[in-house]
């Protein structure tokens, strides 16, 4: 109530004469207020009622008009609400299958289309979480981040729902439009066109990715038999084709063996990212990390990397040498010369090494630390038969041959595992074949083109002008999950099943077959791509049945696999058993090929201008995963950038070019031009630009559309050192800028204020093997006991805790991906990442130390530390964050009012605030659509706007284990529960469990001499222990 000054003065005057109104008063104004029963100030009866009724004094709005307005607004409201989604009827789950209990998860074994063996968790029929199949001998329970995030693609709202065909309507407005149709019409029409193509002798071109399935290969063969003018083209944007080609030349077979990474004392990776983006990373990381066990300190392997860019593998190396890829051949030959000079006898023919520089000359020539080179050669000589030199997929064939030769000279071929041969069922088409295809399309020799879940318009070389050639083909058909660049202007666009809705088999390694089975019936009116082809081969396509390919697959297995295994059970039981396990091994005799290469005299390369390296993106691959928001938002393991690609350039080259971060440069390779923003990348070789493909998609769902830059235009079949490395590039400044958002600062190395602060604050603690051997407690000497005036709470029962081994963690992001899926973490988009509002509950901090030219990299996953004396809990005004009796720092979402005090008071900065309801805020509610609702894990609350969230140590899994234990009348085991990040970690870096159980792995990890907690001196007693990293370097380097 407004209180007029004059009245107050008047009352002050009265005060002297009157008594206070009441004995108790809440405020001074109340004290001085006149009594409420004063008729003048607090009238009980308003004037209008007391006075005579005067029509002029009433509101001009009549009662009828008011009613009319009210009625109209009700009508508006009702009209506006007519389109609300029907939520459906709620019925009880009274007809459930006997094996299903409401609320219990059901698991299935299966495979993804890349051949990964997976285990799928479903709830009430919905696939929710994809992990590795623990029984698969290759994957052993781990998969890639794409596999982890693949469930989002199943529910992607941009998936096609019905077959579409080009409109035949005579109306101008409808001309060329795609209209919904039915499968029968599609099949009849296409079969007619296929038959006409055969009759006219014109080609039917099927364009596919790699054939990893033996049954799919059989299908293609059968299709060719039915339609003899068919030709199947296979391609990948990034592949191991050079490695295969080198093996074919070296050993007479293109199928190469797996490396026994866990047996290698010394690993030399040449421009190879075997821990990040090449090969089956889950298997390679596992083998590598096995030899990084602090409990087997004498078995630590040593990793050398020789590379131009800074790769994930390079980040994890003990010694890293910067070398432009043109000089890799010379490097290998120099090593060979040094090795031979040491007196090793050789049985195979060697190239002429007389013109090759020796170690000292090479080090001087390319400004490489001579000492490191000496260590490397000495290690190779001392570890013959126990070391491996591994060339990257992008290096040209002759470097691979030289590496094979060097491994043979050093007897390192003992580390080839011939029981696990990397198999390819059909070779990729060569660039020449693909170029000829576009030529045939242009000249009208191709009648039908079928895009078999592929995107040649985006992936093929730009100078082939595939999209233009496509317009000259009579019938264009795309078999896709969602529309892409190649489905533009097609005659038919046919929706295909997702991996989790399909049947198939895969054989990545010879003799190890994994099965794919559908765990959900197709969500939409789609068909499996193989079934579509099969139906086009049928006598009567109208008799299509959904199990057509399932039967085809079973028939092949019954005819070809079952007799080899020859089990006691009949085929039906054998088939059930195979589906249950998801994988079967057929014993095959390991045949070790012999060195067959006779002459090898390659020419050395020089360098001119800039060298451009085109890498596959760690998250979105070749662009296939670009519409997956989780993958787009996963920070790059090295630069921590999200949602964009960029030109990574060495700091010295950035200075030379006179550019800064986010300045746009034009890269020109023989007239092929691309504009990219600059990202200064410490540790890179000078005059080298590294960028990544997969971005700049134009025909895709709303998430992936126009993110980053399409750099596929830089590919060419001419002039490159290899398909992915080009020399002689020119760089021009454009004067433009483009923001690339990184979740970690770009300049931490150069900044005096933060230089090495992770060491000085003991956030990162590390040492060397030598230091540890001399003094096991060398990291503990600085520690002093911390006292507290408050008595500490005792945890009598369970106390959950985690340990992360920094020797094993390689920053692969699998934990981030698994956490996203398990905990319904929302996607926030590029703009919000720029504002620092990414929502991932676990982040991988990356620290540089040393110089920008030759930095050391330290990685540390940071999640909620569940501190015993959590500083976030003290400041929450509504007790929304508090402590459980088993040591969890928990969040009560319903109680949280969003003050963000907790996030401000958290020293680890692990709390995430929902500044928006990101599901409705992002891309016009893209992630709020019906299909996405099916993706959410029902065991975890979907948080709304204004609520704080953070890691819960997967409390839902703890509760599930507790319920099981209660049912069985026992205690929860110390190592029984696995968190999502722990389950996904291919390196086995994460340990979780009950720290009060002395026998548990976590209790032992906490007590380890190398164990430390971050910011220990704050005395907030975190429950995440880090095992300090030990670098396997020579003692004089320390």
């Amino acid at each position, binding site marked *: 109530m407004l209180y007029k000054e004059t009245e107050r003065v008047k009352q002050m005057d009265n005060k002297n004469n009157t008594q206070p109104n009441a004995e108790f008063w809440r405020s001074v104004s109340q004290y001085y207020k006149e009594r409420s029963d004063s008729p003048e100030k607090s009238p009980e009866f308003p004037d209008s009622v007391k006075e005579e009724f005067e029509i002029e004094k009433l509101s001009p709005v009549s009662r*009828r*008009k008011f009613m009319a307005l009210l009625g109209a607004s009700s009508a508006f409201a009702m009209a506006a609400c007519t*389109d609300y989604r029907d939520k459906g009827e709620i019925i009880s789950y009274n007809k459930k*299958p006997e094996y299903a209990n409401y609320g219990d998860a059901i*698991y299935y074994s299966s495979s993804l289309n890349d051949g990964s063996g997976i285990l799928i968790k479903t709830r009430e029929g919905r696939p929710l979480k994809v992990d590795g199949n623990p029984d698969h001998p290759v994957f052993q329970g781990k998969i890639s981040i794409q596999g982890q995030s693949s469930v989002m693609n199943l529910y992607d709202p941009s998936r096609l729902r019905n077959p579409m065909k080009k409109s035949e309507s005579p109306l101008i407005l409808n001309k060329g439009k795609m209209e919904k149709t039915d499968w029968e019409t599609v099949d009849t029409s296409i079969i007619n066109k296929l038959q006409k193509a055969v009759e006219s002798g014109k080609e039917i071109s099927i364009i596919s990715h790699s054939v990893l399935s033996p049954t799919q290969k059989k299908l293609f063969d059968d299709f060719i038999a039915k339609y003899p003018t068919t030709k199947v083209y296979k391609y990948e944007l990034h592949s191991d084709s050079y490695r295969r080609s080198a093996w074919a030349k070296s050993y007479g077979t293109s199928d190469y063996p797996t490396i026994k990474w866990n047996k290698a004392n010394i690993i030399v990776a040449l421009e190879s990212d075997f821990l990040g983006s090449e090969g089956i990373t889950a298997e390679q990381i596992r083998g590598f990390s096995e030899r990084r066990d602090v409990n087997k300190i004498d078995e630590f392997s040593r990793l050398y990397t020789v590379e131009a860019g800074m790769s994930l593998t390079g980040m994890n190396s003990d010694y890293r040498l910067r070398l432009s890829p043109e000089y890799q051949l010379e490097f290998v030959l120099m090593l060979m010369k040094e090795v031979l000079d040491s007196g090793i006898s050789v049985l195979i023919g060697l190239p002429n090494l007389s013109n090759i520089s020796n170690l000292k000359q090479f080090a001087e020539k390319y400004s490489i630390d001579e000492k490191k080179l000496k260590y490397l050669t000495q290690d190779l000589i001392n570890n013959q038969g126990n070391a491996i030199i591994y060339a990257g997929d992008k290096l040209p064939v002759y470097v691979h041959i030289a590496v094979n030769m060097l491994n043979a000279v050093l007897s390192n071929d003992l580390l080839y595992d011939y029981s696990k041969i990397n198999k390819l069922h059909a070779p990729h088409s060569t660039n020449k074949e693909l170029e000829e295809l576009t030529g045939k399309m242009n000249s009208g020799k191709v009648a039908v083109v079928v895009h078999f879940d592929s995107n040649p318009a985006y992936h093929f070389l730009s100078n082939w002008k595939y999209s233009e050639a496509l317009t000259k083909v009579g019938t264009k058909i795309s078999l896709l999950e969602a529309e892409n660049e190649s489905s533009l202007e097609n005659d038919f666009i046919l929706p295909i099943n997702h991996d989790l809705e399909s049947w198939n088999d895969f054989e990545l390694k010879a003799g190890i077959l994994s099965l794919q*089975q559908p765990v959900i019936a197709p*969500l939409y009116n789609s068909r499996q791509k193989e079934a579509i082809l099969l139906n086009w081969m049928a006598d009567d396509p109208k008799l299509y049945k959904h199990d057509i390919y399932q039967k085809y697959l079973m028939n092949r297995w019954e005819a070809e696999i079952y007799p080899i295994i020859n089990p006691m059970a009949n085929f039906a039981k054998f088939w*059930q058993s195979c589906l249950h396990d998801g994988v079967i091994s057929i014993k095959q005799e390991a045949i070790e090929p012999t060195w067959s290469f006779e002459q090898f005299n390659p020419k050395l390369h020089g360098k001119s201008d800039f060298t451009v390296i085109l890498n596959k993106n760690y998250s979105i691959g070749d662009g296939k995963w670009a519409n997956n928001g989780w993958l787009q938002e996963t920070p790059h393991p090295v630069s921590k950038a999200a949602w964009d690609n960029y030109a990574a350039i060495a700091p010295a080259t950035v200075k030379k070019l006179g550019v800064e971060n986010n300045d746009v440069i034009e890269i020109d390779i023989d007239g092929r031009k691309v504009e990219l923003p600059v990202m200064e990348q410490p540790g890179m070789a000078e005059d080298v630009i590294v960028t990544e493909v997969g971005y700049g998609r134009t025909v895709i769902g709303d998430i992936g559309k126009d993110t980053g830059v399409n750099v596929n235009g830089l590919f060419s079949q001419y002039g490159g050192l290899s398909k992915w490395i080009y020399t002689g590039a020119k760089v021009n400044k454009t004067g433009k800028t483009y923001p690339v958002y990184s979740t970690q600062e770009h300049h931490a190395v150069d900044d005096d204020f933060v230089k090495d602060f992770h060491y000085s604050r003991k956030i990162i603690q590390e040492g060397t093997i030598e230091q540890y051997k001399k003094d096991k407690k060398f990291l503990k000497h600085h520690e002093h006991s911390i006292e507290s005036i408050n008595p500490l709470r005792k945890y009598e029962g369970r106390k959950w805790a985690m340990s992360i081994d920094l020797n094993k963690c390689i920053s692969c992001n699998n934990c981030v991906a698994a956490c996203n899926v398990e905990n319904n973490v929302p996607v926030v988009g590029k703009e919000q990442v720029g504002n620092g509002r990414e929502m991932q509950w676990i982040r991988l901090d990356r620290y540089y130390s040393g110089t920008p030219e030759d930095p050391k990299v330290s990685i540390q996953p940071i999640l909620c530390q569940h501190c015993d004396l959590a500083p976030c809990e003290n400041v929450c005004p509504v007790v929304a964050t508090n402590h459980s009796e088993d040591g969890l720092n928990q969040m009560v979402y319903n109680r949280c009012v969003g003050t963000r005090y907790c996030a401000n008071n958290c020293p680890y900065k692990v709390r995430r605030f929902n500044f928006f309801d990101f599901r409705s805020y992002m891309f016009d509610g893209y992630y709020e659509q019906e*299909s996405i609702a099916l993706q959410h894990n029902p065991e975890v609350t979907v948080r709304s706007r204004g609520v704080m969230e953070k890691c819960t140590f997967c409390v839902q899994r703890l509760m599930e284990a507790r319920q099981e234990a209660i049912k069985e009348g026992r205690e929860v085991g110390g190592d029984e529960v696995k968190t999502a990040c722990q389950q996904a970690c291919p390196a086995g870096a994460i340990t979780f469990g009950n720290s009060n159980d002395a026998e548990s792995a976590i209790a032992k990890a906490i007590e380890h001499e190398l164990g430390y907690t971050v910011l220990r001196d704050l005395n907030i007693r975190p429950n995440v222990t880090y095992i300090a990293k030990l670098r396997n370097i020579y003692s004089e380097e320390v």
Partner: protein
Amino acid sequence: MEKTRENNRRNILKAGVFAGVLGSILSFNPVKIFASNAQIKKDEKIKVIVHPDAVQRNRKGKANG
């Protein structure tokens, strides 16, 4: 009084027509006010059906990996 009644009737009619037209426009939803609903037609509602031939894997007690 007659005039007032006539005016009111007109107002109600006007409001009713306006409401009807606006209601029709909103139902047609040309500006995708309810974007998420607009993308899924009622005859295309997603149905979750467990595939009859899939073989489940019993992992009782091992649910956490």
